[in-house]
């Protein structure tokens, strides 16, 4: 064992030690170096370059140094000192909203004092109203406006929830803690700020969110792919600076994982319709829908109080309306429906509805099924026209089993109908929006089609005076004359004398016809007993009868009633 050999041997062993030490210190140095450059560098080094000696001090703010000896308390000298369990302590029945594990560590500093960090910090740009106590104003200790943490995320949860990825297939970037719980550290790496906000994954196109949340039909939907940008006007729809396009912001266009305006579903805005209208007012989306709801007659989305739930049962739900009742933001696509199509277009994909038979359908096939969800199950409570058949349940009137109905759910019952606009035949079908539509829509404009708002009562595309009396003119019945030719009606010498009733006696179409359907008579005959204001229109005849008896063939009939002082007892045509 000469000197050289022993030297070589010691170098061999020492070399391995050295290499190991070097490797560890290099990786620690890299980690520390990265950490030193982030906001988590909490060393009291003041302004200026980070000092070399601060490297060991960097870690202690979260990794509390261990003391070998615990101090004995003077008032309790019988017992030795305590070593505290800082964040590995058993969960001890944590309630929702009580952080465990690594989240304890994060939230001990992210408390609004040591760090603001957007825990329960209002997001810049979210609109605040002092309205009724909904959203974060709701009282209760587990309504957090932040993404839940300290929850067990296992296969059972994924199966129960239905829209979560099984955690065994999570990408490696997402870290559950050793108890299988989702903590702050699932999405954030407190050591390195490779992505902004210490995120573990780049959140472009919602990659971070969709790593766990698998929303059906999201992939090809318009909100996931749109290249629209925000004009910069009004409140920003996504947290600034954000990404340039809607598709890149993806989930953040409507949701906030921290500081949500409305805690349930972590919606970004406290005011329910604002979540949609912040973009759909022309500042990001192509069409301006928001202005439609300012018209005098509109679906009252401004009254939405977060009643809507995605899993609601139309049969038992409390009556309400919000954008999400007719549009599914996760599934909507850009392809509009063809003109005159009865089936739902891209904007109404995967929306629940009620079929003409009254059954709930999870994804409506026909546009009218979405309308019937609210207008086809219950009677409305607002004042309206009173007819001989008092129902205002539209579904019951459009029912193809009725003797007459506008052909929405099925082809009409009158094969010999005349006087139709050439576009239509007796075999045509129409949709709700052929009558209930935007009254100011122009081709190529920024206004959308659809029953959002109208200047005409009943959200109609054109005027229809359903009052009594009404001076006959094209303008007053423009909606009807759109399809039913005015000249044919007023000039015909056979069939019902429309001219006398409409022009001479100034009775409205609505005095005899219900626009949706009649359960008792053909030709949509269902006499108006009282107007919206409650004034009487059609009353029984002198013999106390109020009815229409159809003749053997169309174009003939008998009426028993009194109207405008004229006693029909009976009158026959």
């Amino acid at each position, binding site marked *: 064992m000469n000197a050289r050999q022993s030297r070589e041997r010691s170098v061999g062993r020492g070399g391995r030690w050295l290499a190991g030490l070097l490797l560890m210190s290099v990786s620690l140095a890299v980690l520390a170096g990265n950490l030193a450059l982030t906001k988590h560098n909490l060393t009291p080094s003041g302004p200026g370059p980070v000092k070399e000696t601060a490297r060991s001090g960097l870690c*202690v703010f979260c990794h509390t140094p261990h003391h070998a000896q615990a101090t004995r*308390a003077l008032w309790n000298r019988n*017992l030795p000192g305590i070593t505290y369990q*800082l*964040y590995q302590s058993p969960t001890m029945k944590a309630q929702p909203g009580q952080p465990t594990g690594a989240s304890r560590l994060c939230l001990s500093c992210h408390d609004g004092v040591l760090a603001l960090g957007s825990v329960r910090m209002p997001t810049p740009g979210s609109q605040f109203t002092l309205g009724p106590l909904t959203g974060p104003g709701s009282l209760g200790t587990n309504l957090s406006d932040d993404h839940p943490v300290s929850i067990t995320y296992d296969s059972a949860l994924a199966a129960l929830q239905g829209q979560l990825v099984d955690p065994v297939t999570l990408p490696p970037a997402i870290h559950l803690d050793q108890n299988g719980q989702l903590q702050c550290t699932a999405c954030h790496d407190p050591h390195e700020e490779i992505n902004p906000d210490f995120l573990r994954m780049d959140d472009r196109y919602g990659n971070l969110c969709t790593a766990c949340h698998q929303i059906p039909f999201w992939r090809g939907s318009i909100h996931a792919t749109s290249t629209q940008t925000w004009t910069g006007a009004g409140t920003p729809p996504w947290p600034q600076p954000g990404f340039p396009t809607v598709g890149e912001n993806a989930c953040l266009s409507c949701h906030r994982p921290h500081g949500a305006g409305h805690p349930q579903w972590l919606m970004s805005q406290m005011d329910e319709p604002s979540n949609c209208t912040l973009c759909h007012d022309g500042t990001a989306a192509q069409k301006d829908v928001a202005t439609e709801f300012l018209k005098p007659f509109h679906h009252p989305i401004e009254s939405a109080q977060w009643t809507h739930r995605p899993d609601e049962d139309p049969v038992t739900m409390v009556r309400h309306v919000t954008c999400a009742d007719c549009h599914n933001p996760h599934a909507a696509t850009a392809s509009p429906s063809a003109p005159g199509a009865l089936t739902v277009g891209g904007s109404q994909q995967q929306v629940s509805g009620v079929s003409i038979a009254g059954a709930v359908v999870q994804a409506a096939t026909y546009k009218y099924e979405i309308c019937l969800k609210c207008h086809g199950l219950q009677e409305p409570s607002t004042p309206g026209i009173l007819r001989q058949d008092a129902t205002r349940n539209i579904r019951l009137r459009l029912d193809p089993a009725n003797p007459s109905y506008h052909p929405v759910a099925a082809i009409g019952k009158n094969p010999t109908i005349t006087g139709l606009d050439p576009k239509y035949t007796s075999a045509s079908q129409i949709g709700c929006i052929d009558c209930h539509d935007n009254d100011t829509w122009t081709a190529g404009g920024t206004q959308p089609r659809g029953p959002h708002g109208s200047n005409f009562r009943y959200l109609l595309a054109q005027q229809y005076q359903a009052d009594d009396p009404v001076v006959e003119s094209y303008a007053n019945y423009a909606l009807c004359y759109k399809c039913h030719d005015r000249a044919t009606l007023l000039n015909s010498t056979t069939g019902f004398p429309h001219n006398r009733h409409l022009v001479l006696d100034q009775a409205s179409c609505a005095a005899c016809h219900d626009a949706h359907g009649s359960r008792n008579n053909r030709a949509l005959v269902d006499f108006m007993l009282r107007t919206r204001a409650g004034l009487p229109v059609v009353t029984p005849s002198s013999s106390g009868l109020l009815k229409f008896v159809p003749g053997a063939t169309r174009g003939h009939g008998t009426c028993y009633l009194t109207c405008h002082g004229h006693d029909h007892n009976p009158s026959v045509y």
Partner: protein
Amino acid sequence: MGKRKIPLWSALVLSLVLAGGCGTTGTGAGGSAAAAKGPVWPAPPARPRIRYLRSIATPADLGIRQSLGRNWLARLSGSRPVHFVRPTSVADSQGRLYVADPGARALWILDPTQQRVIRVRQVGKSLLRTPVAVAVRADGVAFVADSTARRVYRVGSDGRFLGIAAEAGLQRPAGLAWDERRGRLYVVDSAGHRVLAYDRNGDKLFSWGVHGAGVGEFNYPTYATLDRQGHVLVTDSLNFRIQAFDADGHFLWQFGSHGDTSGSFALPKGVAVDSDGHVYVVDALFDAVQIFRPDGTLLLGFGRHGSGPGRFWLPAGIWIDAQDRIHVVDTYNHRVQVFQYLRAARQDTGGARP
């Protein structure tokens, strides 16, 4: 950086003794006035120093009955009861309890005498964003620090907005302490690493402190309190110590070290002083309150992680009233716990003997 588990035998002894202490009522020691109900610390046979009184999470806990007629809050929020959400700081004055609750974005004022609870959400034209600290004057006017808005507001005892007490130059106002005798408000600026003093009109008097680890320097200070001499005690959280200054900001003394054992700090937050001059420091990560003499001698630690009486979940602020009732804000248990400091009949120096 590893943790060493408590040796099994001492853990067993500890848990047995603590369980016994928490379960039994105070025995012997000449039946003192308070019909001893709550758990005491330290556990017998040591002389009890701290007794658990009660928890306050809803107005009902203070005997405030909410009737629909009188309480507009109950009407608006429907049938859901009023409850603290994520409180961080508490103070009382004139029998009213003031709780700063950034989780509810509000300052709660609970008044058992008038049987009402006021929830202050709006301050002038703004809304409270993160009201993290509160201090109260003897006349019932409250100061609320809003760390996000970078302001300290003045709010009347009826919840009325009175004005902005401090704003200019504040980076992140956190802890507040009000000196009734001198008419001074001390504001701890956490991200500014300094303490500012204002007079009763809101005019800035002076400030002290820079970012650092030396004497009189701060690293993210959080809460502050005053002792009976008007000295200002500041929790210098990320230097893991308490520093004390005189009323004009001159350094007096400090104590504290960083560690995971009793007598050190892992994340100190609220600080308060009882009538005997003992310093109480809330440690959020210990889920405990530790009591020291001003020279840093550890007297007692009470509290453990959990949800029951005497258990805490990331506690924050602390306030001791004139009757030595200790209010600890138990943030993630959404409540304020109240304890009684059991003062000895004669002058107590901190106890060379039990």
